[in-house]
């Protein structure tokens, strides 16, 4: 079947395309225009509309045991994202024109659980990042000064076992330190008993991921999240990239200085400057928006320290086999000094980092805000007058400690398409996504051009997933189930035998129990392999 999207404004920054034209679909892929346009089996009129590739979200906590704990902890917030169970998650993303979403924090022992949840999210494709950096085996490798090859094998074995798309490290060594009753842990602090610094863990994982040819660089959740003055930690981590690729997650939560009478200010401008100057580093923002939400993080130390801020006053702290996690409900308020600084710091990062290929669009869902706020954030980025209206409602003493009012920049539609489509596909190594050239997967979002950008991005006019129409005028029209994207770098099989012996000795179990076989997922063709660089 040949489908034609006719006469829309096609914005495809991966190919410097921005103009009125057609997009053609056959068998789930984008194809060249046929010589005779009359040949289309179906034609959709896209005139007056914007045509982009489907959106890609690189960091959104949509599945896994910590997310599910949040659901069970907060039945009263069920309606937070229009019902935040798996079915609604897929539908709500699709309505906004997003077609691929990455769950960024899965402990290897919970990978099977996470994949079962991901499998029940309809329409979109999914992926997950496996979390290392607070695990005894890795500490053991480093403590015994084993080779870089041993580290690579372990990382590759973890990716193969968990069926992940990449590796994330979360407060490297911090969860382990917390188990030894350490209550603060920074980049050059030493993990008790094992003796290596947080920095050394990040560097070892960064190197292993890079050498394995995994497309997505190491995804780093830095130390000291949320604390006044933590911009220093982020700057030190950016400097630690040392020319190799490194992705820093939800940088807004590290954008704080110590100015002002409360000792809390935005240092986002400083961070943006460092990111602009450090070409091997990418970041996502983790924008805060005002309203009730829940924070879900594998940074168990940070969540424990934040427990008394819980609204309502209940929280869960989980000491896991490695990272664990914490679930702390929270409400960001526009009249709260600290929350106002956080909101402004996020927008400063978006607006002051000048390369839309290196700044990624996230709220760290649901930590900064539910993903359903994306349309409002896009509108703020594209309209300085709209920002001024919001700023006018914030505590002036908070605004004074940011540079936001002075920033005139407005994102163009092309920059939005880069940040939410072309760049994420490139960052994750998804060569056939995030663009509209022949050969690409036909994941396409069509928006009705209108002055209210929030309304425009909230309800896509048309969304195609693998060439199938799934959304029309903001309503889901058909349900299908996507795949999970994975990588599988080569490794020496000796590591599998070694892991078997390790699990038997330490836990008295076989690592097979945590495996994620295709047959366990309960959907046909549940996985799609993304190639690694050789």
């Amino acid at each position, binding site marked *: 079947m040949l489908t034609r999207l006719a006469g829309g404004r096609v914005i495809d920054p991966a190919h410097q395309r921005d103009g009125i034209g057609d997009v053609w679909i056959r068998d789930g892929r984008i194809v060249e225009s046929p010589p005779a346009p009359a040949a289309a089996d179906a034609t959709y009129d896209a005139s007056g509309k914007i045509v982009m590739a489907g959106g890609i979200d690189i960091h959104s906590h949509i599945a896994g045991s910590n997310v599910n704990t949040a659901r069970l902890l907060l039945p009263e917030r069920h309606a937070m994202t229009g019902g935040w169970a798996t079915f609604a998650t897929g539908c709500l993303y699709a309505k906004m024109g997003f077609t691929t979403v990455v769950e960024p924090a899965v402990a290897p022992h919970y990978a099977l*659980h996470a994949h079962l949840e991901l499998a*029940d999210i309809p329409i979109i494709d999914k992926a997950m990042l496996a979390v290392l950096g607070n695990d005894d085996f890795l500490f053991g490798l480093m403590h015994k000064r084993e080779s870089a090859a041993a580290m690579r094998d372990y990382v590759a074995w973890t990716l193969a076992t968990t069926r992940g798309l990449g590796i994330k490290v979360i407060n490297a060594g911090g969860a382990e330190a917390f188990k030894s009753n350490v209550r603060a842990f920074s980049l050059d602090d030493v993990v008790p008993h094992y003796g290596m610094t947080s920095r050394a863990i990040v560097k070892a994982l960064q190197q292993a991921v890079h050498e394995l040819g995994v497309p997505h660089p190491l995804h780093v959740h830095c130390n000291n999240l949320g604390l006044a003055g933590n911009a220093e930690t982020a700057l030190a981590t950016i400097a630690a990239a040392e020319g190799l690729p490194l992705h820093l997650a939800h940088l807004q939560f590290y954008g704080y200085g110590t100015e002002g009478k409360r000792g809390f200010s935005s240092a986002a401008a400083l961070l943006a400057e460092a990111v602009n100057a450090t070409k091997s580093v990418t970041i996502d923002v983790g924008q805060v928006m005002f309203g009730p939400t829940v924070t879900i993080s594998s940074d168990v130390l940070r969540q424990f320290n934040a427990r008394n801020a819980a609204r309502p006053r209940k929280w869960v702290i989980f000491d896991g086999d490695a990272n664990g996690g914490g679930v702390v409900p929270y409400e960001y308020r526009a009249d709260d000094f600290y929350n106002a600084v956080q909101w402004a710091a996020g927008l400063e990062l978006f607006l002051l980092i000048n390369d839309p290929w290196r700044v990624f669009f996230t709220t760290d869902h649901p930590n900064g805000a539910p993903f359903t706020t994306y349309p409002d954030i896009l509108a703020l980025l594209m309209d300085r007058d709209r920002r001024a209206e919001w700023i006018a409602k914030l505590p002036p003493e908070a605004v004074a400690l940011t540079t936001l009012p002075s920033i005139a920049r407005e994102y163009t539609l092309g920059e939005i398409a880069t940040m939410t489509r072309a760049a994420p596909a490139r960052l994750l190594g998804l060569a056939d996504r995030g663009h509209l050239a022949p050969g690409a997967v036909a994941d396409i979002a069509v928006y009705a051009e209108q002055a209210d950008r929030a309304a425009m991005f909230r309800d896509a006019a048309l969304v195609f997933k693998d060439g199938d129409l799934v959304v029309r005028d903001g309503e889901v029209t058909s349900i299908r189930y996507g795949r999970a994207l994975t990588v599988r770098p080569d490794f020496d099989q000796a590591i599998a035998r070694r892991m078997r012996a390790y699990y038997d000795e330490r836990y008295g179990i076989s690592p097979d129990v945590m495996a994620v076989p295709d047959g366990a997922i309960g959907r046909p063709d549940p996985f799609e392999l993304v190639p690694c660089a050789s």
Partner: protein
Amino acid sequence: MGDAWISGKPATLQAACAEAARLLGASRFPLIAGLGTDMAGARAAITLARRLGAAVDHMHSAALLKDLDVMRDAGWMVTTPGETRVRADCLLLVGTALTSAWLELPRRLLAPGTEAARRVVWLCPGREVARSLAKDTHVNAHAHVEVVGGDEADLPIVLAALRARVAGRPIGKTPVPQDAIDALAGNLQSARFGVAIWSAASGIDALAIEMLCGLVKDLNAKTRFSGLPLPPGDNAAGVLEACGWTTGYPVRTSLRAETDALHDPWRFDASRLVDSGEADCVLWISAYRPAAPSWTRDVATIALSSPDTRFRRPAKVQIAVGRPGGDHDSVEHVAATGALGTMVAAAPSAAVSVAQVISDITAALPAGA
């Protein structure tokens, strides 16, 4: 060998599924209960419940919700069986039914070599366990277990006294001498990483669990301590997770269209729904063992269970299903890891799985049902 029956008479699987679909399709308010099944069976059952507008409940909901009510009212700090094994230098075993909730507990947590110099205290284990510990039997062979308190009934007041002493507050008379309470309070505070272990399937009540979880939180002001709730069997913990991610709520939830769910622990209690006559058709699932429902009222029942299940009232339709992890591969909650895990069939057989039977029933539903 027969594996399906309609009104007690052998039938083909196809005919039994068709009859089950007819009964469920004609029902005013169907109920899916028992739910002793693996993750595939649970996901299939929830999908069917949405199609039918049915309520879902698990045979161990009372225990599940005891823990969950503490968690969602007050929060808690918990850890894994693995972390307890490799790190805990102090185990506080609380109440009864621990080794029945987790048969491998002594081998995994109390065996020599799991942690040097681990202190093990058992609070109110009940007279029987206390006597057997004194006689140095099974459990005690692995590690020295110190017993504080006797009857399970003493647990609420002993826990309250312990929490008060940890907080430095005075206490009145308790069934345990204050010296023993004070000594234990001191030992908990001097632990480096302690773990309190309990089973909600025992007689412990929700207030005592909340007291215990509050004690754990208090201990974390100065040291590290965590909790390890032992879930009930029949994959109750796994079914709870599946219900959570597919509906946003735990079991005892009524489902309709894809995003429509109503959770009410009283209203959607399976026994109450049957005894009150509100539910007029039940799909009963017990794939791990021949468990029968506890209610006595006659209600149209479709049972997916082992063929030797003894029902108080005969089921209208009975279909023999395989045991997850026995007859067929399964994904289910694994006690040793505290997570969902893959279980390879121990003795693969041709017995059908719950997920397969539900798929067949769903396919046979009348249009519009």
